[in-house]
């Protein structure tokens, strides 16, 4: 039983290692760059899957939390502490919260440790998500969608209109995030393989955390809320509390992904806060089967990877918009939903047993 529970995660870990070895052997390591980025985006999608699929609350503003993480770390680690004479900057240096790194011009600069900015970003996101979550999650349906969309647009407008955040240019030349020893999150091609593993480990950790969450008492409470909020309430489930908890958790997932991807890219721009990004996340959760972490993971990696490598060209947004419509019209429960997968499995079994292939429509 324990083995069966851990087998998929172990399988995924093995697949990650095999894929890395294969790309290295074939001299195609550059594939790993987009895969690393896709993994960070997947972290946002996993958080959103629990919010949308299990708690049944739509969020059209998750790109805002991602941008919050990215911009917080960008602004904080770009502050030059070299000439810290007194006050807060001096204190930061004295407490050992700063690191030095060499910037693009070959000059050594002293700046805040990304570990500190990560903590600040998470605290900030938690606070914001908590404060807006309380009123927003009281809303339902269209109102909830519009309120989260509105929140996303406000963050986008602020990012786009404030000189501290670089306005339309964003912030670039962000120092690497040195984790420990020689491990660093940065876009340096030399560090491509280790960055792939950093992203993969983070993604696996997030996945295991969420798998355990939905398999726990809280997870069952969440599914009850999705089924019927009134019924869950009547059974004594603290619906408001659980919804808020998942909202904040998914916001933190987006924020952490934002921090890491910003250091990996060495820059962050307003497009990360764009509404279209939020819509893309929702589209992938829908394709993944709504309440299906594995489906969301698979689709998140595949679609983000194809999109980042530019396979969709100038039709990128059209592809994601089209996916939303097709999935909702023909597979309202999501493409990789449990029922569709079961139907597929049933059809495959019948096919193997030789009882004819007409069962493709999935009827038992």
């Amino acid at each position, binding site marked *: 039983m324990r083995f069966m529970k851990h087998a998929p995660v172990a399988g995924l870990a093995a697949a990650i290692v095999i894929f890395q070895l294969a790309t290295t052997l074939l001299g195609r390591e550059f594939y790993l760059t987009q895969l690393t980025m896709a993994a960070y985006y997947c972290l946002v999608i996993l958080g959103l899957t629990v919010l949308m699929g299990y708690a049944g609350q739509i969020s059209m503003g998750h790109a805002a939390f991602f941008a919050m993480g990215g911009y917080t770390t960008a602004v904080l680690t770009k502050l030059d502490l070299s000439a810290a004479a007194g006050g807060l900057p001096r204190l930061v240096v004295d407490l050992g919260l700063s690191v030095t790194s060499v910037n693009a011009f070959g000059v050594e600069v002293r700046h805040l440790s990304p570990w500190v900015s990560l903590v600040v970003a998470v605290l900030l996101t938690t606070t914001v998500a908590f404060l807006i979550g309380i009123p927003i999650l009281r809303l339902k349906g269209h109102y909830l969608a519009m309120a989260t969309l509105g929140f996303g647009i406000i963050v986008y407008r602020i990012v786009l209109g404030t000189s501290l955040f670089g306005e339309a240019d964003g912030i670039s030349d962000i120092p690497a995030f040195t984790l420990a020893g020689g491990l660093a999150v940065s876009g340096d091609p030399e560090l491509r393989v280790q960055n792939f593993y950093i992203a993969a480990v983070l993604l696996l950790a997030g996945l295991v955390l969420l798998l355990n969450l939905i398999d726990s008492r809280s997870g069952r409470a969440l599914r009850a809320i999705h089924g019927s909020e009134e019924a869950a309430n009547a059974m004594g489930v603290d619906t408001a509390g659980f919804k808020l908890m998942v909202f904040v958790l998914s916001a933190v997932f987006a924020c952490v992904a934002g921090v890491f991807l910003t250091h990996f890219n060495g820059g962050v721009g307003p497009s990360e806060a764009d509404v279209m990004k939020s819509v893309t996340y929702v589209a992938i959760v829908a394709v993944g089967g709504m309440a299906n972490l594995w489906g969301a993971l698979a689709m998140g990696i595949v679609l983000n990877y194809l999109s980042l490598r530019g396979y969709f060209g100038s039709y990128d947004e059209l592809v994601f918009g089209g996916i939303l419509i097709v999935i909702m*019209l023909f597979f309202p429960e999501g493409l990789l939903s449990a029922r569709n997968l079961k139907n597929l499995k049933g059809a495959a079994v019948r096919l193997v047993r030789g009882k004819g292939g007409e069962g493709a429509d999935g009827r038992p």
Partner: protein
Amino acid sequence: MSLEQVLQYILSGVTNGSIYAIVAIGFNIIYNTTGIINFAQGEFLMLGGMTAISLAAFVPLPLAILAAVVITAIIGALVDFVFIRRLKTPSVLNMIIVTIGLSIVIREIALHVWDEKVRSLPYFTGSEVTSVSILGAYISPQVLWVLGIAAVIVVFLGFFFKFTLTGRSMRACAANMTAAKLCGINTGAMVTVSFMLSAAIGALAGCAISPITQTQYDCGTPLAIKGFTVAILGGLGNSTGAVVGGMVVGMLEAFSISVLPLAYKDAIAITILLLILFVKPSGLLGKKEAAGLKEF
């Protein structure tokens, strides 16, 4: 602030407010018959403006606008035939996602049919430098056109819903879909009509504002969000409320420019939206019971 300046802000607020009100009425028409918030409403304005601009190169302006309205109405009907009808027992989440998907697809198709360039229709009368003086404030004659068209739309809809059989049938659908069906009203057709009507007035508004605000493939979404704010403020489904809400949001935006940087202008309407949603989701003029009944 001098009197002229205040007047100038008020006129600008009324102009923008009436545009928002038209978008909000478009939302209301579809919401009343189907319970769907059509997130692609802003795209109807864009399509109307873009089609008229393309046609204006070949035919006289009034004909181009008329053709644009008809074409957009047909697209509205197609949206219902091809997508909305196929949603069987849709949940609210499904409806939201479908219309958002539609909005993206229409926008991206427009990007590939036209391009990313900013275009505009010629001014209906005069040019960009003509202005009319009202009590010391100067406004473009196009502003008067926008106000006039908004007024005509509101009056026309008032008559349509009160005195025509189709309009009355649509009101019956809004009140109770099942009862309307039992009375022999073809509810499916009414939904199609509501999409066509909504698309047509959106297209007309899109043409009227094109000389002032310009038209681009992605100009629909910001308008849709303002329109939605106004629709919520006035109470979803309430057209008088939409006009009042439009004026309130338009005025607040116009006066906000004098105190806040222009870059934050769009954030103001949305902040208002969030505040209303948190404090009084049924809107200023919306009845609580009515909002409750329509609540999925």
